[in-house]
């Protein structure tokens, strides 16, 4: 009691005064405590800004100048992640109104479209981001392949990326059923029967009775023999829970490995290619370097940054983070613009008795649909498996070092890619034109055994042509990388041309038409 009186007498602030002072300073102090080390003005605070933040510390503190050139990545990885972020945000919003039960589902989508405030806009953004994510993931894969960025020590991250591609397509496909309209119902019927298509082979071999892997796959996928309420709730579960969780886990591994594998791939002579840093670049180590890490243990082995100085690196904050923010904003802007001008489609409510004519899958599966129009098993399972396994094996078969980190790097280089593109386009157009004009085995010899029709069809012929061409390139340039460049380029050409044919040149009964205006009325 005496002390308080003494303090007051000494002319110090009263408790109320201090309280008011603290109250005034609270917002400022709150910001200070949120960011542990203050504003990023010096090299030291710039690094603490990155590693002192739980969301940013996956970045390295400094980034190589090579990785920051737009042409190194075109920002595709961050763009794909941005799409996923937008999809989660809009997806959660849609879940407020969506009800996963047949017919009710369709009505709830109608509600979202016509009644719910901003519902149509949010659904459109969700749809466009989903489409963009598929495109961007494919482009990202092409970028990594053409810059040979899958090479040691980044092999495993390429495989993780394959997993991400598969989960992305799975998310897109499961989302396709949810509106429960005609488009959804028949696309999923086709998809489920593709899962069942190993029966085409087991039937031909007469062993379906005791080994029916196709039937089992369809049963697990649909929970029934037909697309119905069981299938809808399963697809919903996959779309909002199982696959997003798998995607998040894979993204975590993917990002973490980028960091651990030494950042982005770059050529060995990147430093000489870049030349000395420009004057604008914040100079390296203007202050005495301070240890910013703690060593838990010293272990033997190589790490990606041993023996490399920081001279060609610049602080991630702001150089990398601003770039990422720019990509993020561009991605969102694009999906919002598309969402404003183009509505997500919604057809009539699903009718199990009458298929759409033509019944088309999502556009990125229309290349596959073109292949399954020749054989369900080879087109829907056989060839995609060959492609996926082939892509996954690339980093383990190409152990060369020439051209890492350079666009179209490696023996053959750009001329080889151009040649392969010409061959790839010519082959797929020739095969498709032949089939459209002259038909295939069954029309010529109706009694051909099914196994022959399954194994020898336009899709497998095209795969064979591409493989032969790739081996020819491999021998010509005496390089696995050259073979891989040829095969990958052919695969891209085949994918694009088949998708375009499936999208624009197939009409009712999957017949060929030069334009939809020639479709017969129905």
């Amino acid at each position, binding site marked *: 009691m005496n002390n308080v009186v003494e303090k007051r007498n000494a002319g110090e602030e009263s408790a109320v005064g201090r309280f008011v002072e603290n109250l005034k300073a609270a917002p400022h102090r709150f910001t200070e405590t949120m960011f542990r080390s203050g504003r990023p003005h010096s090299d030291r605070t710039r690094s603490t800004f990155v590693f002192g933040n739980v969301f940013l510390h996956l970045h390295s503190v400094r980034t190589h100048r090579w990785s920051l050139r737009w042409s190194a990545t075109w920002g595709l990885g961050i763009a794909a992640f941005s799409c996923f972020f937008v999809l989660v945000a809009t997806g959660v919003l849609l879940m407020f109104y969506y009800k996963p039960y047949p017919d009710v589902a369709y009505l709830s989508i109608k509600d979202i479209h016509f009644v719910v405030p901003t519902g149509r806009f949010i659904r459109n953004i969700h749809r466009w981001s989903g489409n963009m994510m598929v495109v961007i993931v494919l482009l990202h894969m092409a970028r990594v392949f053409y810059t040979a960025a899958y090479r040691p020590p980044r092999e495993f991250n390429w495989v993780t990326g394959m997993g991400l591609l598969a989960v992305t397509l799975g998310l897109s496909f499961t989302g396709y059923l949810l509106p429960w309209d005609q488009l959804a119902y028949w696309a999923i*019927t*086709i998809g489920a029967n593709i899962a069942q*298509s190993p029966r085409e082979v087991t039937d031909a071999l007469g062993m379906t009775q005791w080994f029916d892997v196709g039937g089992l796959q369809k049963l*697990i996928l649909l929970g029934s023999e037909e697309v119905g309420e069981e299938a809808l709730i399963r697809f919903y579960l996959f779309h909002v829970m199982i696959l997003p969780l798998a995607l998040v886990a894979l993204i975590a591994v993917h990002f973490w490995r980028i960091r651990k594998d030494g950042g982005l791939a770059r050529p060995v002579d990147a430093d000489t290619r870049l030349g000395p840093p420009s004057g604008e670049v914040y100079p390296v180590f203007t202050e005495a370097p301070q240890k910013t890490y703690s060593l838990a243990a010293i272990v033997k082995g190589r790490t990606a940054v041993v023996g490399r100085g920081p001279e060609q690196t610049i602080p991630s904050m702001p150089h990398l983070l601003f770039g990422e923010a720019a990509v993020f904003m561009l991605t969102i802007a694009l999906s919002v613009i598309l969402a404003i001008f183009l509505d997500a489609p919604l057809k009539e409510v699903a009718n199990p*008795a009458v298929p759409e004519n033509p019944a088309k899958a999502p556009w990125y599966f229309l290349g596959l649909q073109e292949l*399954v*129009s020749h054989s369900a098993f080879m087109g829907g399972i056989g060839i995609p498996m060959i492609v996926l396994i082939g892509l996954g094996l690339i980093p383990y078969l190409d152990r060369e070092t020439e051209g890492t980190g350079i666009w179209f790097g490696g023996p053959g280089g750009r001329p080889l890619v151009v040649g392969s593109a010409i061959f790839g386009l010519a082959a797929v157009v020739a095969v498709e034109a032949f089939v459209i004009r002259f038909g295939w085995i069954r029309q010529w010899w109706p009694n051909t055994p099914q196994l022959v*029709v399954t194994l020898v*069809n336009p899709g497998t012929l095209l795969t064979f042509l591409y493989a032969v061409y790739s081996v020819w390139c491999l021998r010509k340039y005496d390089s696995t990388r050259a073979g891989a460049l040829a095969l990958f380029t052919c695969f891209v050409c085949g994918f694009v041309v088949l998708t375009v044919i499936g999208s624009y040149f197939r009409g009712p*009964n999957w017949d060929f038409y030069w334009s939809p205006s020639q479709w017969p009325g129905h």
Partner: protein
Amino acid sequence: MTTDAKPTQTARSRLEPEAMPRRDFLGLAAWWSAAAALLFGFLGAMRLPKAAVLPSPSKKFKVTLPASVATGQPYVPAGRSVAIYKDGANVYAISTVCTHLGCIVKATDSGFDCPCHGSKFAKDGSVLKGPAPKGLPWVELKHLGGDIFLVDEGKAVAAGTTVIA
């Protein structure tokens, strides 16, 4: 420099390394049993999503064949994927579910056309063109008297099986 005097090929003693040290063996056994436990746990859990009772609607239904159906003209009962034909006194039913990827084929004057991937079938259901691996199955039909028939979409019969009305 001294070198260790190595005993020349004596009987194995406890001091010599075993083919696989006991600890390594136990360690491996522990890992493999953990992996086996996970595998069988996963397989056991996978029994749940494989439905034991299928919720599919009944595939048997009664149908009254209208007298107006002419010979060779398909009659498709509403909501069903079966085309019923009259051929004089003979009546038969052919499934309209495409054997390729499960789309519903359309009965036309020349046979059946699939809208999804262009398979074409003859009047008797056999494949003419396209990716379908098998012909359309004929399904079981029972005559219940008068114009009433019992159709079982789930039960295939040999092509050419008819019932006499």
